[in-house]
């Protein structure tokens, strides 16, 4: 018999719920790693088994879903889906390339900055989806190898996303589970992100930047781009940027007013949909709404739902508490050793496997350390270490983050395949540099 507050469940054939939950959890991880079946299917299937096998009741499973994370993700996806139609992202990319007179190294730096800022304020997957096609167009025009640009954009997206609550899914999950605000992330991780981004540019310059060159006649062609023409709908641009600004303001101010990020993101999405649909005929609105909702990445949302249930099933058996104590035994309960271990382990793990299930598992595990660390309020260095490790670790390999795979997919379709090993050999050491910087940062800032 497993207890979850007032809810009780009976396991199938009276099997030991701890073993059952652990087996289901490990099988879920294994199958996700194998990449034979889509991860959203695996997570939802495993969640179903958690309930059907009696580890959790349906009510308990629903309790395990972090609807703040789900709401925040969905709301932002809707806002971005509408905003992108205005062409503002292409405008920014072209504008930034022209600002540096189409100088190749200047373009690379500007695209890194644009990617990092958009990744911090939106999400890194959407950012690369919109920036990479412009990058390929510009590099094609300048007859340059796009690889240095794409490599740098991958890094910029993952580094930029680390800076805010909404920039990367691990941060959304951590922020929601711990009740951290948008400002908390910016204040505590922002400085590290700025330093890491600046230092990352140094090896990129010495490896590629100093040899990047393009004849003036080709640069003139880029300078002839009319970025204003990239804006396809000025009215929509004003509406979406206004709502986006309000949403960001809501994130900044909402925490102190007691509003969760999901409420702000979902309300912002509803407001933007209202503004987008109001001028349309009622009969057309159904089709527009259908298209907008269709742009939500439901596979990601259902992956999260399934995963939350699977991890909650495991958590409910007390295994994660036991593991937390084991970890503390290993680190001797020392905060510095524990924080830096979490930073490095999460970085390496996130470089090799999907960081979402990893973070989903680490959250209850770290929460389980509260007692030994003198209360939940003392765990902050551990949370920042997890955020830095899991977000920056995504840079370590091509499979480390969804954004990396999306860039690789674009590159392949454009005839410039990014090879796994070639990327790894450059990216992994550069990722380690960012973790070394984070180590100093965590140590001197939080310990």
């Amino acid at each position, binding site marked *: 018999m497993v207890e979850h507050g007032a809810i009780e469940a009976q396991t199938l054939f009276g099997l030991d719920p701890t073993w059952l939950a652990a087996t289901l959890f490990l099988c879920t991880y294994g199958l996700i790693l194998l990449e034979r079946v889509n991860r959203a299917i695996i997570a939802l299937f495993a969640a179903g088994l958690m309930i059907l096998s009696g580890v959790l009741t349906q009510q308990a499973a629903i309790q395990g879903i972090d609807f703040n994370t789900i709401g925040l993700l969905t709301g932002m996806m809707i806002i971005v889906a509408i905003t992108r139609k205005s062409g503002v992202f292409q405008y920014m990319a072209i504008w930034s390339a022209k600002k540096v007179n189409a100088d190749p190294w200047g373009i690379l730096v500007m695209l890194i900055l644009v990617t990092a800022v958009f990744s911090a304020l939106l999400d890194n997957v959407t950012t690369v989806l919109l920036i990479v096609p412009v990058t390929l167009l510009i590099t094609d*025009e300048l007859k340059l190898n796009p690889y240095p640009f794409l490599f740098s954009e991958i890094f910029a997206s993952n580094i930029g996303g680390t800076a805010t609550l909404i920039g990367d899914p691990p941060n959304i999950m951590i922020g929601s589970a711990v009740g951290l605000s948008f400002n908390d992330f910016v204040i505590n991780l922002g400085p590290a992100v700025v330093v890491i981004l600046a230092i990352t540019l140094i090896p990129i310059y010495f490896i590629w930047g100093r040899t990047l060159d393009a004849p003036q006649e080709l640069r003139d062609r880029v300078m002839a781009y009319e970025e204003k023409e*990239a804006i396809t709908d000025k009215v929509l641009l004003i509406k979406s940027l206004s709502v986006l600004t309000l949403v960001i303001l809501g994130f900044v101010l909402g925490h102190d007013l007691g509003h969760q990020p999901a409420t702000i993101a979902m309300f912002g999405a509803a407001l933007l949909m209202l503004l987008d649909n109001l001028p349309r005929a009622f009969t057309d609105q159904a089709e527009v709404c259908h298209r907008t909702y269709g742009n939500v990445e439901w596979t990601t949302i259902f992956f999260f739902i399934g995963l939350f249930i699977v991890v909650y099933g495991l958590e409910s058996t007390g295994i994660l508490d036991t593991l937390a104590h084991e970890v503390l035994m290993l680190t001797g309960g020392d905060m510095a050793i524990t924080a830096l271990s979490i930073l490095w382990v999460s970085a390496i793990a996130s470089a090799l496997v999907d960081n979402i299930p990893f973070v989903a598992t680490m959250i209850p595990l770290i929460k389980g350390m509260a007692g030994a660390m003198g209360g939940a309020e003392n765990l902050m260095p551990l949370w920042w270490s997890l955020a830095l490790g899991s977000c920056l670790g995504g840079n370590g390999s091509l499979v480390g983050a969804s954004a990396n795979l999306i860039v690789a997919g674009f590159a392949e379709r454009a005839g410039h395949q990014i090879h796994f090993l070639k990327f790894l050999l450059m990216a992994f050491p550069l990722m380690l540099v960012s973790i070394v910087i984070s180590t100093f940062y965590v140590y001197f800032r939080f310990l």
Partner: protein
Amino acid sequence: MTARLVMNANPAVLRDTDKISLAAEQIMQHRCRRLPVVDKDGKYVGVFGINCLLRLVLPRALVMEGGLDNAAFLKQDLKDLHQRFIRHMEDPITICMKEDVRVISPDTPLIETLRILYNHKGSLPVVEPKSGKFCGVVTYWDVGAAILAAEV
């Protein structure tokens, strides 16, 4: 009454070893949207469409999956497009030949042939199911001519 009744058994075809330059010449000469492609044994292998030619003269970032959905900011002229075409003239047609085009059998019933043509919105290669041998094409024009010529 089958597809044979409305099929053109001697259409212009391309060989899978042909180059883009020849495909462009044929398409422009015959004013057709696409041409069937066969191998040395006369087996059907796919179709080469005029859209492929358009694809080759446009920047890759515009025509790739997930590419830019607006190119109004680009200021390129016909010379730029021609330059891009020249770069591909010697490429084999297989670089953008479509293999997943709907085909029909010569024994497909007439009305079913027309239904597929209506839904498919493009000419239909007619292929012998067992041997894969190319038999001809059914186009709107062949069908139209056949219907108009039919006596009531």
